[in-house]
């Protein structure tokens, strides 16, 4: 049963990562791209967690914590130094 769950979650997470990458490529503003890359990092962490749960080891746990640290530092830094460079700021 665990192998079936692994296959189904692999398909679901691949679709989710594809959607996040489409939003990174298309995103109208920088903050949309930051948010979508944060979601992509969360999907990577979810994939690592499912690998740990199916194969019953704990090797990736530090990697999951490191991914959350990277997402935190990256989004805070970009949000701190973002500037408005649009011609007409009223259009979202």
């Amino acid at each position: 049963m665990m192998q079936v769950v692994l296959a189904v979650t692999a398909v679901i997470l691949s679709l989710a990562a594809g959607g996040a990458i489409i939003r990174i490529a298309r995103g109208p503003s920088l903050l949309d791209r930051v948010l979508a890359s944060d979601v992509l990092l969360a999907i990577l962490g979810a994939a690592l967690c499912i690998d740990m749960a199916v194969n019953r080891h704990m090797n990736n746990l530090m990697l999951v914590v490191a991914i959350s640290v990277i997402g935190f530092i990256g989004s805070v830094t970009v949000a701190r130094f973002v500037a408005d460079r649009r011609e007409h700021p009223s259009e979202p």
Partner: protein
Amino acid sequence: MLTPDLTSVDGWIDVVSAVFMLVGAIMSLGAAIGLLRFPDLLSRMHAATKPQVLGLFLLLASIGLQMRTWWVWPVLVVAWIFQLLTVPVSAHMVGRAGYRTKHLHRELLTSDELDAVVQKAAAQAAREDGGDDGSTR
């Protein structure tokens, strides 16, 4: 083994952790669909927090159920609490930067509590500037 053994405790633990893993993966899919379908930054932020908190909780719980030992639970709780501490800070920063650079549809907001504060601070700053120019310099 495609059908789980529902007569033993191990079979039930397998079923529960499999459901947790599926729901946690569907949280990620829901976040991606929300990122693609929602109209502006603030509503996309609403969708993006699903896999970061509840999805990670479900997946860490499935790890704890699959490992069948007690000592892993404090480690998993520490990892989840760390995520709980960092996610609101980054969401706050992104939301504040989005408000200041006006990446939002104002007609979609039901209430804007920050607008009154911003107007008051701007009026106070203008008043203090005017007072300084007349009296001290």
